[in-house]
């Protein structure tokens, strides 16, 4: 598997560390509820199909990236920096 790091270029998956689904947003602040936090920490869609997920270029530029990958075929549609991902989300 290859991941096209927006900073470094196409690299072997061996250089990256995986975290998981990029969708959950941490409920920040003192007013966050336990229920919301339980959901953020534990519950996952785990789709068979397109999945936006967090990877860390551990052996490269140390950037966290959002990779859009099909979990049935491993085909990668997009690799975004966190900034790009946020811009996309807000857009």
């Amino acid at each position, binding site marked *: 598997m290859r991941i096209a790091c927006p900073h*470094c*270029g196409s690299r072997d998956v061996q*250089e990256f560390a995986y975290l998981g689904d990029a969708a959950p947003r941490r409920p920040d602040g003192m007013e966050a509820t336990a229920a919301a936090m339980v959901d953020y920490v534990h519950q996952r869609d785990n789709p068979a199909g397109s999945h936006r997920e967090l990877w860390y270029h551990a*052996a*490269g*530029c140390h950037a966290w990236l959002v990779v859009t990958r099909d979990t049935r075929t491993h085909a990668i549609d997009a690799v975004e920096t966190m900034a790009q991902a946020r811009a996309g989300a807000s857009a």
Partner: protein
Amino acid sequence: MAEIGMAWTARGAWTGIAAAGAFGTPHDGVRVQLREGLGIASLIAGQEQEPALERALDSRYGLSLPRGPSAVSSASHTLLWSGPGQWLLLAASSAGFAEDCAGLAGLAAVAEQSDGRAVLSLSGAMVRQTLAKGCMVDLHPRAFPVGTTALTSIAYVNIQLWRAEDGPEGAVYEIMVPRSMAGSFWSWFSASAAEFGCAITVSRD
């Protein structure tokens, strides 16, 4: 009362690991220069700091700030991109490097790494064949021209690699390894270069 009069001599990162000489088959297919005594510092700038940092580096060293994975060099200094918003400043000599760092303090988060890295300069007819045994990055001249740098890993050691100006035998690659893993890196390198034969020299300041 620090006059117990012990001399504080610094120990090079390659000391006890590699020394001038040769190993493997008698071909010198690969040449290694152990680069001791470099000044190295990491610079991290926020977006707002970058212009000022860029001006400073340009005025001081005539180096422009690489925005992507490349390396720029002057006679005395090299500036390596080392991640988004991050660079490594290298000085051929650690003498006076503290002043280099102090001068940039306000313009970026500066952290000296001179003692934390072990650096090799690799060349020779078989250098690419040797690196291919562990380097997961495409080093074909079309993909990795002079002035390109890459952060990657070789034999489970995270390294930074960059291509300097060509030498008499063609491509010259510089490799920077974490000091604590220099021995393991060398174990991989010597096993990989042995079939081509390897000559080792040492450069200090």
